[in-house]
């Protein structure tokens, strides 16, 4: 409960921060942006289309590998707490798990997934 209250307090504080920043009264020059002011910055050049697009994120194969590791994290949190109590067995288990995932990295490397293509 206390945690939730603290978090709520933090969110309230940040909202005050951003709204305060944008509040009128700081500047004598505030005003809506005109159409030429709104053009995207390209160093004087002009684009043919909007920038929003089906962007070619070339690391999409890497993200699959990332998900595998991220799932492993779920296992690691409780493992960290009981590690000392369990001893060598826990170490061996995690070692095996990491070894299997490392094969995934090697496979990804062979397929060139870290190379931006």
């Amino acid at each position, binding site marked *: 409960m206390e945690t939730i209250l603290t978090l709520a307090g933090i969110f309230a504080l940040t909202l005050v921060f951003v709204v305060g920043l944008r509040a009128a009264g700081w500047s004598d*020059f505030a005003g809506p*942006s005109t159409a030429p002011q709104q053009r*995207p910055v390209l160093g004087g050049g002009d684009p043919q289309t909007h920038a929003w697009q089906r962007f070619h994120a070339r690391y999409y194969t890497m993200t699959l590998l990332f998900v595998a590791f991220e799932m492993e994290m779920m296992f690691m949190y409780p493992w960290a707490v009981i*590690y*000392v109590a369990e001893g060598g067995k826990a170490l061996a288990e995690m070692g095996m798990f990491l070894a299997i995932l490392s094969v995934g990295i090697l496979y990804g490397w062979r397929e060139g997934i870290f190379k931006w293509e």
Partner: protein
Amino acid sequence: MTLLTVLGMLVFLCTSVWLAVALDTACRGWISGQGADRADGPLRTAALWLTQQRLTTEAPDRMNALLSIAGYMALALTGLALVPLGPDTALIALPTSVVLWGACEALVVVVVFLHGWSPNAPLAMIGAYRYVAIGLPIMLLSMFVLIAAALPAQSLDLRDIVTSQADVWNLIRQPLGLPLFLLLGLSLTLRGPFDYADSADLAGGTSVEASGPDRLGWQIARLAMLTEFSAMAATVFLGGYLGPVLPGPLWIALKTLLVMTLVIGLSHLAARMPVSRMMSLIWMILLPLSFADLIWAGLVAL
């Protein structure tokens, strides 16, 4: 008591944001051979940004533009609230505070992406997408390092991680930990070799379109994040509030400033490589190093 803590932390945050700019300009001046700037420089630049007109772009995503700044700031504040100031004092006292911090760290990728997405401008958008490619794997690395620090404490509570360092700091016990963790700091705060979002090759990347108050808000949030990260690194690797003579909160403040200086120095002195090269470096070298750190920590803890 709690109110006093909150006020104290806010004062510390403001001081450290100002100090971070001062350190940054001092570092820059020293390396470039130009000498230091005036002490009130940061304050005056902030005033100038407040005075400037806030520009918007063609058909922007207004809500996410606001949310990205607010979110970045909120994540920094949440992280800061998790930092223990004494054996039982932390604004957010959770038995699983490491997990909450990990979640904050992951959300940074989202808010930085949104910041680059919302202006509907090409250079900002390239910065946004590119940041995700590095922000994701660097997060894995940092979580391995954090889990390694949790092993000797047998707990996911940052307060226990500090008490577990009463005899020897994790800095010495797990020598690979802090260097790897600092890389995450560079990435979280968009600095130097890990600045793939706001970099010079994109004329400012996700902030290329930010003017006036929005620019000020984003920069303050970045510095708040730097403070938060430094405090977290000091807690996990430098024994947090532990120390002789001086009171605990003062120790953590001093250690935070020390880490901050390290991060700022690194960001000026290490070169940034093209993104695909960095992606390979993280997966093929840095991530295996973090495995080694975990196994090392595991063996030491037994």
